[in-house]
């Protein structure tokens, strides 16, 4: 046995007064986030990317008769964004739901919280790690989609233009307009708003799931309730309108409904992806509002999670 612990207590400084750790330490949060990121990556979650690749490859080769070039390009975007959306929400819910119970079961939580780690740092680090994985997955999926869309655009538009040029009545101006119409559905910078909107939605979903996992008794419960809240959140507006208009409703039911409307994030606000896929112009103000909404929901759910987690005994 080596004698390397000799300095253990002396180096610590027996008379050194303990330094109060800052309430929020970026370096500690970053350590927890990178460990979470590594944990999820080494759990081989990126294998899901292969499924995404497979789906996009199938759409690329799927060419139903009667579809125009623009429709084919839009289909690629629609399906890809839908898959990106589903995968991101699945990642956000499943990975967040698994983290705290697993740390508790493996007693890793004991070793972390017995270090000078404020509980807020732990929650922030875990949440950030999950969001880093979701972000990385979205970047990979979007890069793949961009590549496929670019290649598909070049092949389909070239073939279509060659075909149109052979038509005798086709003048160059009409040809240019038709090309512009087709290319409008191709690869453009504003498409980047779609993965961004999906990411913001995933932030809120992960924050809600983190809150649930601070008091849930099982991972399954957390996953099911998170998924339910996610679905309810999409009908936020209609639920609110029904409750406001229906004056004959039972008072208790109405109150409960209003509480749900207040507590559940309005996920319908994030449904901007369809418009982006349809090449509709994106208002930067809308994206700014989405950032704000995401920040408010995430901070609120983190605060409630912290209140529960602060007093939790292990």
């Amino acid at each position, binding site marked *: 046995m080596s004698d390397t612990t000799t300095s253990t207590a002396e180096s610590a400084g027996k008379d050194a007064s303990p330094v109060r750790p800052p309430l929020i330490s970026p370096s500690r949060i970053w350590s927890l986030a990178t460990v979470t990121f590594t944990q999820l990556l080494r759990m081989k979650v990126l294998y899901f990317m292969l499924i995404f690749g497979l789906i996009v490859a199938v759409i690329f080769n799927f060419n139903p008769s009667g579809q125009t070039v623009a429709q084919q390009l839009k289909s690629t975007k629609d399906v890809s964004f839908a898959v990106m959306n589903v995968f991101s929400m699945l990642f956000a819910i499943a990975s967040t739901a698994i983290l705290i119970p697993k740390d508790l079961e493996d007693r890793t939580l004991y070793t972390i919280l017995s270090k000078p780690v*404020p509980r807020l740092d732990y929650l922030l680090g875990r949440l950030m790690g999950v969001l880093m994985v979701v972000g990385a997955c979205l970047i990979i999926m979007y890069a793949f989609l961009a590549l496929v869309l670019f290649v598909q655009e070049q092949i389909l538009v070239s073939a279509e233009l060659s075909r149109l040029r052979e038509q005798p009545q086709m003048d160059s101006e009409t040809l240019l307009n038709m090309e512009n119409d087709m290319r409008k559905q191709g690869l453009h910078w504003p498409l980047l708003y779609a993965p961004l909107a999906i990411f913001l939605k995933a932030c809120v979903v992960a924050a809600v799931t983190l809150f649930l996992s601070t008091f849930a008794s099982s991972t399954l419960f957390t996953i099911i309730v998170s998924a339910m809240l996610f679905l309810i959140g999409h009908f936020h507006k209609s639920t609110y309108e029904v409750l406001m208009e229906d004056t004959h409703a039972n008072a208790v039911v109405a109150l409960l409904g209003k509480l749900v409307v207040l507590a559940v994030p309005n996920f319908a606000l994030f449904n901007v992806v369809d418009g982006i896929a349809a090449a509709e112009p994106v208002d930067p103000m809308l994206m700014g509002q989405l950032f704000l909404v995401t920040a408010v929901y995430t901070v609120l759910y983190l605060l409630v999670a912290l209140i529960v987690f602060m007093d939790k005994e292990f």
Partner: protein
Amino acid sequence: MSTPAVKIENLTKIFPLSLRKRYLVAVEQLSLTVGDGEVYGLIGPNGSGKSTTMKVVLGLMAPTKGTCRVFGNDSRDVVSRNQVGFLPENPYFYKYLTGAETLKFYGKLCGMKGPALKERVDELLEMVDLTGARDRRLGGYSKGMLQRIGLAQAVVQRPRLVVLDEPTAGVDPSGSRKIRDLVLQLKKDGTSVMLCSHLLEQVQEVCDRIGIIHQGRMVKEGSLKELIALEDQTEIVLKNGSEALIEKIRSLIREEQGAELVTLGHPRTTLERVFLEETRQDAPKPAKD
């Protein structure tokens, strides 16, 4: 007089069992003090309240009544954890991290960074004899190796108090001995240690003071000498004593009023010692037929 490493006063911990106002008193009016630089052994049967007491010391639980202070700081305050290291029973660290990554992670949690952290990680890996396995993932570590990496993470920030919960549970005698040596090294360095173990022999070997806890209450506490000394008995160990000499001693004892010979025989070594002796790397190999 220096501030005690741990000072628990009248600690009571009650857990609600159900909604029908039923409670479990896990620890009741428990008081103990672990002095600075002292190795304190807390022993007791399963369910006696040892783990609850430890969790209160670590701030993982709050006392229902009473107080717990670590180097003068309330154990619920995160500041008290600057000076504490903890090794839980059967720890499962992140199995996808390597030994070096694990220590680096825990070091960073304690605010360490840069070359100082790297140096400390190398030092600790050498201390626990895991330098050769530094880049292997913990998923491939044996039980003993996991306990040793656990001990290394517990002391990564050079804490003044190390809390060990059954540090040798499930470890073979050789690994157990290594961990015991590490605890002795910590003691030599002046680090306070609070040790919970069922292995009484081990507790006896390393602890300065021992507390016996039963049904949440401290039933006996004191220095090892005080607890195990049989004040009315005297042990004499003879080497190369002839039968005649032994007979003389017997007759002398018979002549003494009130004296009684309790045992006489060959002193025995421990099974642990024989096992370790026989399984040493440099032990002579048994002859083959």
